[in-house]
């Protein structure tokens, strides 16, 4: 269990590092941060960030999954589920 959390944490930090250049308001990034409402990141930017995540973890994240996630935490959980499924 700790191993999973550790990994989860790494995914969270990876996403935060990719989002940081778009965090123009300097908001604190947490699992509850809403990508569009809090960070005002547009939907296309989210898709582009996801592509970096895909290449980083060698997984494919469907557009459908991304459109269902609102917060950083939801994105982390989705990536985690896909990593498990595709490994």
């Amino acid at each position: 269990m700790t191993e999973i959390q550790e990994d989860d944490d790494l995914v969270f930090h990876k996403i935060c590092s990719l989002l940081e250049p778009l965090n123009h308001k300097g908001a604190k990034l947490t699992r509850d941060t809403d990508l569009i409402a809090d960070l005002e990141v547009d939907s296309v930017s989210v898709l582009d960030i996801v592509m970096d995540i895909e290449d980083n973890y060698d997984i494919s994240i469907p557009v459908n999954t991304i459109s269902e996630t609102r917060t950083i935490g939801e994105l982390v959980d989705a990536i985690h589920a896909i990593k498990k499924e595709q490994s």
Partner: protein
Amino acid sequence: MSLFDKFEKNAALYNQLSEAGQNPFTVVMEKVLGPTRAIIKGRETVLAGTHNYLGQTFEPNAIAAAKEALDKEGTGTTGSRFANGTFSGHKMLERDLADYLGMTHCVVFSTGYTANLGAIAGLINPADDVVLIDADCHACIYDGCALSGAETIRFRHNDPESLDKRLARLDPKVKGKLVCIEGMYSMFGDIAPVQEFVEVAHRHGAYLLVDEAHSFGVYGETGKGVSEAEGAMRGIDFYTGTFSKALAAIGGFVASNHPELEYLRFSSRPYQFTASPSPATIASASAALANIKAHPELRDKLWANARRLHAAFTQLGLNIAAPPAPVISVLLPNRELAFAAWNFLLENGVYVNMAIPPGTPGKESLLRLAVSSAHTNEDIDRLVAAYTAMADAFEGARVTASAERVASIQSKS
């Protein structure tokens, strides 16, 4: 009230544009004077922001054919392709398009948008199939995926290796795989390495759909598009196109050598549940198709115009998004400058398109110019003069390229 809350942010942006000058999204062509001229805001303007690539909007034979169709068949079909709105003209145009492309089957839709929507949603079963799309694909391809309900995976723009990786990762249980790319991408005017995509797709047992909306009639030795220019016509599974650009009408089509394409006629909602193109529309599109087949010099003129403009803009030090193409996009450092420069051009009698994030690849702000074979030397002179004045008027209009983008453009040319 909450129904409308979501519009607030974009409404503010939209209204800001109207307050700061002419809003690019509210331009009205008050009077159309010809294929490349219209009156806008009371001023005679050179049109370089419509997609009249082969200048077919006022061809006398197309107009005569449309008038004859109006007289003989009436103003509308009052029916859908599927149920009650297929006339012999629709079938003849399907035959003519298939023959032109060297394919065995063709299905005509009411718009280019519905052709892609209908092809993707019609071909795909959401339970078993996956669609893989180039990240820069047009909205209608994204919408086709959404309508299909299938899992949709994006790959990096014009990057067959990125597609390769994503195809390799797919669950072996996936049954049908459809890859969607475009011939020429309309925002930058860059083209796809179609043959490389054919090879990657087929190696993984995937089908390839190429949307040639902007490149049909324009690329390739006989105008069949980027697929022809790249030597890939035989390898592509589905070819989609529109009547609203080179053919100067409205409508769209999907062509294929797979006889199963015919199944779309009873399985594609955008084919089944919307009215079919009017007789006059079909007649003018058919005439325009005959014209572009008979007059390859239209393509030569288009390309001569494109090269001349591209060379002039390069000379000016503008930051052009791609090598010479029928779309020439000049990148500007931010949306404010793009907006001011676009207004400046309009005030100087030149109409082009402004495109700003988030609707643009790489979050670029740009001015998109669409070249026409009908642009006269005088039109081209006016375009060059207006861009020259624009480059002089706005510090920052010249050279904004990031080193990365310059490198990527050079590697493609």
